Every structure is written in C-alpha cells, then in structure tokens.
C-alpha cells in the first residue's frame, strides 16, 4: 500500500495543481518585486512587471537567476524578508568553489521539512520506523533537512551525522535502524565496511535508504541494495532552493517526483535559454513558489535532465524528473568530449569493480589525459599477470565505448583512495588552463 505524507497535494489533479501554482506564482512575483531590489532591477531591465504575469504560462517572461547572481548579491542581496524574520542559514559545501548562503524563515523550514517528510514516507517510512540520518549536520542541508522530515513523519530519529563509520554501524544494529539517509558514496562505504565485518543483507535491520546530494548511477544503486538488503531511493535538491526534497523517488524507483506545489520546474536550452517542449533534455530551472526569505525565481541549476508527465504506478501526479546526468559543473570536457563521472562509474560497476574510484585529469603536451584509478580487490586479484592485463584492457575498452575517448586505467592498492563521509571527491583536475 502506497503511503503519502500530503496526499491531497501529492496526488492533486492537474487542474488543481495548476491553480495552486498560479496563485502562488502571482503572489511570489509581487513579493519579490516589492522586497528584492536586485531581482526587481532584473525585471525592469527585461521590461516586465508583476502585471505581466497572469499564470504559469507567463513564467518565460521573467529573468533567470544564476550562480553568478548569487555571488554578486552575496550575502544579503536576494533576501526577501527582514533578517529579524529569518531563523536559519544553510550553506553549500563549496565543492565547486562558490559558496552559497541561503536564508530561511520558520515558514521556509516548515515547507522544506514537509518535502523531506514526503520523501521519507514515499520510501515506506512511518512513525514505526527508526531513521538514521548520516548526512552531515551543520551548514550542509542534508542533515538538517532529513532530520526535520524524519521528525515530521514521526520516526525515531538517530542524528549520527556523518563520520565514525563503526559507530554508525553499531547504532544501525543496536537500535535497529530501518531507514538510512546519507550520500550514496557514504552508503557504499558503509556497505563495504559491513561486509568486512561479516554482516550480510539478512543481518542488517535496514529496509530503505534515501541517498542524494551527488550524482550516482543505477549500477551503484543495485550494488548498495544487494550489499545491505534494502531499497535505495534517490532524493534531489539544492541549497539555493532549500535543500534535499525538491524531488524524491517513490516505490516505482524510476525518476523523482518534483514537489511542484513548491518548486515549479522548467527545462531550457542552456545556450539559447529557450524553454524546451515537454520530454526534452536540457537544463533544469526552478522557481520556488512560496519560499519567503530566499525566493529564487527561474534559478538555473546547471543540472541536465528531462521531465515527464507519464502516469506513475505510485499514484502521485507530481511531475517526474529523470536522475540528472550530473551537474553541468561536474561535467568534464576532455579532448573536446563531454564526460560525466557517472558514466565512468557505470562502466566500473558493470564490470564488477568497487564504487570507490578516482578520476585524474591532466594535460601533457597540450593534450588532455584521463586516468581512472581503481582499487584492486581480492576477487579480481590473481597470480597471473596476463589475466590482470586482460581485465584491465576490458575496462579500457568499456570506458572507450561509453565515453568515446581513451582513458588509462590504473590499478591501485586497496584502501588507497580516500573514503568520503559526505560528498565524494571523484575528480581531480590538474589542468592549468
């Protein structure tokens, strides 16, 4: 039986949803016009006023916001409420070097936690569950978001935060945690450690995992599911829009439902900025419809994916987005070819290699080099050098078929690639351009 946290919204008719979106959008545009001079100036430059916006069909008339705007307006330029009414900030990890500081009123935190509660409920969570939140707590949105969602659902919440892997496993086992929330790379590491400790899928009390905050492949999902004997659900979000919970996976495990009563999605051509027809692949753009303190309108996520209105077996009518191929910030251009780390991960896991890997990009004689570091495993190792070379070549061929360019595969010692407790550092780009 599918459970919902807010059924009337998650399963609303298209007409009802449109009505909600129209009403909220008009109110939000007026709010921003009146309270965010930075965005008002952008609207004026484009020659548009709140009077030009009558429904979501007029969304395309509004100017975009990008990471560059966030940098320029840092820290208070996009604030939509007096600081007196704000109760919290969260901030990005700054992995791409551009730290974002987002503000929240109590209302903003409430709606964010509702979104996370929808995700936990969709993963089968109820007030009978024990939910361990192993995302980092603090400035990072992962811990606070899922923690709040878990409270709303009524789960017994274990706020372990990230790190101290053996203690994580002790809590999971001793307190019979049934739901685990963390990054997929940390989930893989926890799984690896449990396996080392001799814990099989049947020994682990977990039944579901909610994993997000970084790109991961379908193969990695299978791997985690098999190791821990759980169902692994994807969750998507970004600090600019609140945090995790902008979209979430349901029992169908095929694409994520966007909480479109709060976050209105569009797909645009990243070069021309034109809105693309339904089903097209392009850059994902979100308008936060009812966030007060940090009211993003048409925020360009840099994530490449597509949207689908196809009927979902879970009964939700919320529009679905495909797992983004990766943030366009994560995309590497190597010898002129676009390479996403998730493509490399797919090949590795398909050929039975561990999910712990590192991608080194360099430049020799003006030509880009791509090295993929993979840890040797007991299963792969043999005394026969020819056999190891054959497998290595198989991997090189697989990568070439996937990427269209040659990658060098380097086999390295076990545990020589650092394990991550939060977002994994997959790519080291040493090119000086």
């Amino acid at each position, binding site marked *: 039986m599918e459970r919902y946290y807010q059924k009337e919204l998650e399963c609303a008719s298209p007409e009802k949803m449109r009505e909600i979106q129209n009403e909220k959008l008009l109110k939000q545009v007026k709010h921003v016009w009146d309270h965010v001079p930075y965005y008002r100036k952008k609207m004026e430059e484009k020659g548009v006023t709140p009077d030009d916006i009558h429904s979501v069909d007029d969304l395309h008339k509004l100017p975009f916001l990008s990471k560059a705007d966030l940098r320029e307006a840092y820290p208070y330029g996009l604030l939509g409420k007096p600081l007196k009414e704000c109760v919290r900030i969260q901030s990005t990890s700054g992995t791409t070097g551009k730290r974002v500081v987002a503000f929240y009123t109590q209302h903003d935190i409430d709606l964010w936690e509702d979104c996370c509660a929808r995700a936990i409920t969709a993963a089968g969570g109820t007030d009978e569950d024990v939910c361990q939140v192993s995302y980092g707590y603090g400035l990072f949105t992962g811990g606070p978001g899922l923690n709040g969602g878990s409270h709303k659902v009524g789960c017994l919440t274990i706020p372990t935060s990230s790190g101290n892997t053996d203690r994580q496993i002790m809590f999971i086992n001793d307190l019979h945690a049934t739901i685990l929330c963390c990054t997929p790379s940390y989930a893989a590491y926890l799984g690896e450690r449990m396996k080392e400790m001799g814990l099989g899928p049947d020994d682990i009390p977990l039944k579901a995992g909610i994993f997000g905050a970084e790109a991961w492949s379908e193969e990695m999902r299978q791997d985690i599911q098999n190791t821990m004997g759980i169902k692994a659900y994807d969750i998507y979000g970004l600090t600019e829009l609140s945090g995790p919970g902008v979209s979430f996976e349901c029992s169908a495990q095929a694409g994520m439902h966007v909480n479109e009563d709060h976050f209105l999605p569009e797909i645009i051509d990243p070069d021309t900025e034109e809105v693309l027809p339904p089903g097209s692949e392009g850059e994902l753009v979100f308008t936060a419809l009812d966030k007060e303190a940090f009211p993003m309108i048409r925020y360009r996520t840099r994530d490449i994916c597509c949207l689908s209105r196809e009927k979902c077996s879970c009964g939700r009518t919320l529009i679905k987005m495909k797992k983004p191929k990766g943030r366009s910030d994560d995309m590497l251009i190597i010898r002129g070819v676009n390479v996403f780390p998730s493509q490399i991960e797919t090949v590795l896991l398909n050929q039975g290699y561990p999910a712990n890997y590192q991608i080194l990009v360099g430049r020799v004689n003006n030509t880009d080099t791509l090295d993929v570091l993979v840890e*040797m*495993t*007991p299963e792969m*190792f*043999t*005394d*026969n*050098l020819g056999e*190891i*070379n054959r497998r290595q070549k198989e991997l090189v061929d697989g990568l070439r078929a996937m990427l269209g360019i040659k990658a060098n595969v*380097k*086999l*390295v*010692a*076990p*545990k*020589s690639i650092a394990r991550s407790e939060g977002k994994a550092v997959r790519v080291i780009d040493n090119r000086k351009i």
Partner: protein
Amino acid sequence: MKACDTDSEAVKEEKTMAIKQISVFLENKPGKLDAMTKALADAGITLRALSLAETKDFGIVRMIVDDVFDTATVLKEHDYIATLTPVVAVMIPDEVGGLNGVLTVLTKASVNLEYMYATLAGKQTGNAYMILRVEQVKKAEEVLRAAGYRLADEGVI
C-alpha cells in the same frame, strides 16, 4: 580467509610436494616493497625466495616464506591483497646444462611453464633450486621425479 584462496585446484589433489607461493599485489611506486617486507620482518617471517613481475603501474611479488599462514594473516592485517599458488621447487645440479635437463623433461611431457625463478635457500644442502609455476603441478612432479630430480617441500626450502 578470502584474500588468500588458492587459485588452482592442484593443491586439493592427493598429496603433492607442491609449495605454496604467496603472490601479493603492490603498486609500482618507491617504498612499496620496502613497506611490505618491513611488515613481514616485524612479524618475524623469513623469506626463502622472492621474484617480482612488474608492469608500469603495479607489480606482483611472488614469495616463498617459512610460514604461509602467518604471512597471509600479517598481509591481510596490513590491507594487502594476496593469493596462494602451488609451485614446484626442483633442485638443479651445479653443472653445465643443469637447467636445460629439467626443461627437457617438462617439454617431453608437454608441461607448460608459466614462469620460474631461482633460489639458493636450500636449508641444509646449500643447493640451488628453481621455483617452477606450471599448469599441471602433479604431472610435472611425476615426470621430474621419474627423471631422478630432487623436489623440495616446504620444510627443505
């Protein structure tokens, strides 16, 4: 002990003289072999023979040691990946054509040799031994013994 499963059925066959060689994965970087031999030395393990097969990025260290079980345990504790392989140790007469005689016997019996290396570690005798990695361990032992060669077991080397 998963890391040390034997990768040949040969050792499971009825009694052979085969010696268990330990093969270890090492990165081809300065200090890696040093660190591994130090771990073994600290654990009081004696190396009887050693050979390296290397590629640009990594290598396989093949060793004959005095205590296979202890060595495997120490290696696992230090996160090395190792595997056991049965090899044949044959005493080589100190004379012209000594090695060739051994190889001729194997060729006649169509036993394929994958690799070999030498050791002087004949404990009591001071004799030279060749460590042979062959596909058919039992057959190699039979034909060499029939030709009058002396094979060593773990106690001798």
